[in-house]
């Protein structure tokens, strides 16, 4: 039963991926009669005939010279070879190469943010649940309301202003030479950490509150379970009940939410990266947007979607493995 469930989920994930891929293929072809139109260089002082030749050339270069169906087949074939297409930038770099270049820098931000917000969130959430109704709990409640109403990019601007420009604790803008000069030496790593401090702080703010809130709710839900009452009745100490019975069970939903958070963080870092001019996926996407580089944009989109699908799938499968109480198959 479990194996059939796993196979079913994998097949479903593949199906979703195919739909997303197809959407991805057709979105840039929306709303124009000639999809190649967006790829033509400006006419400038060229004569009509010259421009027509350039157009033909562009069509052939970007594969618009065959029928849409053939283009689609070509696109899928390219994907099978992990080829997301060619960017319109000068030098025609591969989209995958560009993503590969920028992804680590975004991961630096998102993974660190995740670790920080998860660890502080767990600590504070457990505290709030333990001291339910006391000031710690009220503080968390107020913090959630406030943090939700304050957009992360506004927090980023304030941090950049106060810690960056006023107190000069951290660089308010990312050092433009950081990426080029990175060579795994201790100094280079220090530079990266220094530059990443403010982006991470502004991203972690919401995450900390979020994880605290869900830890709190999860811990309280488990605290009310019968087995916790039994454990207490057996005369186990508070700490034993907390660590062995409550936290272990409360952790489960949190552990499985990590996959989705990473994919969310990578996509969500766009605005923060823009504020600090951090050279990651987000700024890559915005650069592609401002130069109308559709292959690059759609490549990043597909990459992010695939990441989310994969994270979803892993989460679902892990959930079955981690929680023996979950029954798989038809719940009806």
């Amino acid at each position, binding site marked *: 039963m479990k194996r059939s469930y796993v196979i079913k989920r994998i097949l*479903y994930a593949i199906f*979703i991926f195919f*739909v*997303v891929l197809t*959407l991805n293929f057709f*979105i*840039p072809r929306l709303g124009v009669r000639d999809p190649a139109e967006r790829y033509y260089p400006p006419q400038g002082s060229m004569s009509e005939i010259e421009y027509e030749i350039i157009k033909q050339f562009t069509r052939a270069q970007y594969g618009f010279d065959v029928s849409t169906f053939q283009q689609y087949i070509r696109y899928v074939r390219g994907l099978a070879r992990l080829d997301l297409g060619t960017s319109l930038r000068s030098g025609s770099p591969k989209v995958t190469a560009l993503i590969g270049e920028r992804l680590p820098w975004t991961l630096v931000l998102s993974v660190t943010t995740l670790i920080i917000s998860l660890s502080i969130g767990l600590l504070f959430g457990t505290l709030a649940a333990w001291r339910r109704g006391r000031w710690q709990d009220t503080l968390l409640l107020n913090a*959630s*309301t*406030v*943090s*939700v*109403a*304050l*957009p992360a*990019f*506004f927090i980023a*601007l*304030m941090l*950049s*202003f106060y810690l960056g*420009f*006023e107190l000069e604790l951290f660089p*308010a803008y990312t050092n433009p030479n950081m990426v080029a000069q990175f060579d795994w030496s201790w100094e280079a790593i220090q530079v990266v950490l220094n530059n990443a401090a403010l982006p991470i702080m502004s991203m972690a703010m*919401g995450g900390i*509150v*979020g994880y605290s*809130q*869900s830890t*709190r*709710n*999860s811990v309280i*839900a488990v605290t*009310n379970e019968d087995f916790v009452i039994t454990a207490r009745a057996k005369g186990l100490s508070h700490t034993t009940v907390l660590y062995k019975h409550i936290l272990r069970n409360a952790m489960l*939903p949190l552990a*499985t*939410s990590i996959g989705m958070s990473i994919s969310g963080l990578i*996509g*969500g870092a*766009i*605005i923060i990266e*823009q*504020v600090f001019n951090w050279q990651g996926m987000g700024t890559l*996407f*915005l650069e592609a*947007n401002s130069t109308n580089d559709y292959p690059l*944009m*759609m490549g*990043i*989109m597909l990459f*992010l*979607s695939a990441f*989310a699908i994969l994270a*979803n799938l892993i*989460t*679902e499968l892990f959930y079955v493995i981690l929680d023996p109480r*979950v029954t798989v*198959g038809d*719940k*009806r």
Partner: protein
Amino acid sequence: MSTRNVLLQAARRGGSLFGLVKKLWGHPKGRLGLILVSLLVLIAILAPVLAPYDPYDVTQRAEKGLRPSLQHPLGTTITTGQDILSMLIYGSRVSLMIGIITGVILAFLGALMGVIAGYVGGFADTLIMRVVDILLVIPTLPLIIVLTNLLGRSYFVIVLVFVAFGWTGLARVIRSLVLVLKNSNYVKAAELAGASRWYIMTKHILPGTSHLIIMNTTLTCAGIMVAEAGLSFLGLGDPTAISWGKMLAEAQGGGALLFGAWWWILAPGAGIFLAVFSFMRIGIVMEEIFNPRMRASSSIYKIFKHLNNSYLDEVFRSMEDEGPEEAEGQPISTAPAPEGGHD
């Protein structure tokens, strides 16, 4: 208490819009939210009367970068000397308009999809839930950026995109509620009496879901306002209008950080905060009114992480003891169940 009873009770607690406003007014926090929201709406409507200067006037060379004073209560911009208070007042129009219009359309669309999926069931249900699954994995912000690039940067496009991709959360919640309502005695009685599907859907099912829809709408409005500010900040809003997000972008681009013009950053931030906060207040209080067993604002943050909010899902799950049927294709929930049900 069984799920069905809780849900039916919650459904009964919903009422007319007027009754709802009255209930909100009776709640101290709700009253604050109501007053703030009506104040904001008034400000947005009366912007030309209230604004002391013309916010579009970029020719005030002598007034550049003034600190807050009596003449300019919130100071002026460094680059063009625009009056920040006037910009702030005009900016409220964009935020509120986008937030409220999108929220209301989303409420209709989400409710419709949810009711069709839940009540009609069968193929329609499968189709809608598959679409929900697909929309959930597509990264929202990049998609919105791509579509505004393709379709042009106007508020019409932004609302359209928000609507097209934001209905999934509400649809899922409404679907679960409808599945419960469908099996309730009064719907069965209506079916036996020979009422048509359409009649049951509009007269019995929709009214039962109204409270969730209204509550969701206020929270969505708040979420959309944050998202809109983000888009405008990235320079993807309507280029001709003044909005809070765009003010922040201009402040950053104009060197407000560098020259220490804190008033230029704080003002739009405070605007966004106030608008989102007051809408959220109403949403939270409504939740307390409809579902007193839920502690206020538990996991409310969720909604703002993505446009498709899983927040109501959780509210819902908290009311479930045995849990209503989930379609087999639906991903296993990874969200922690909030408290409730045991208090």
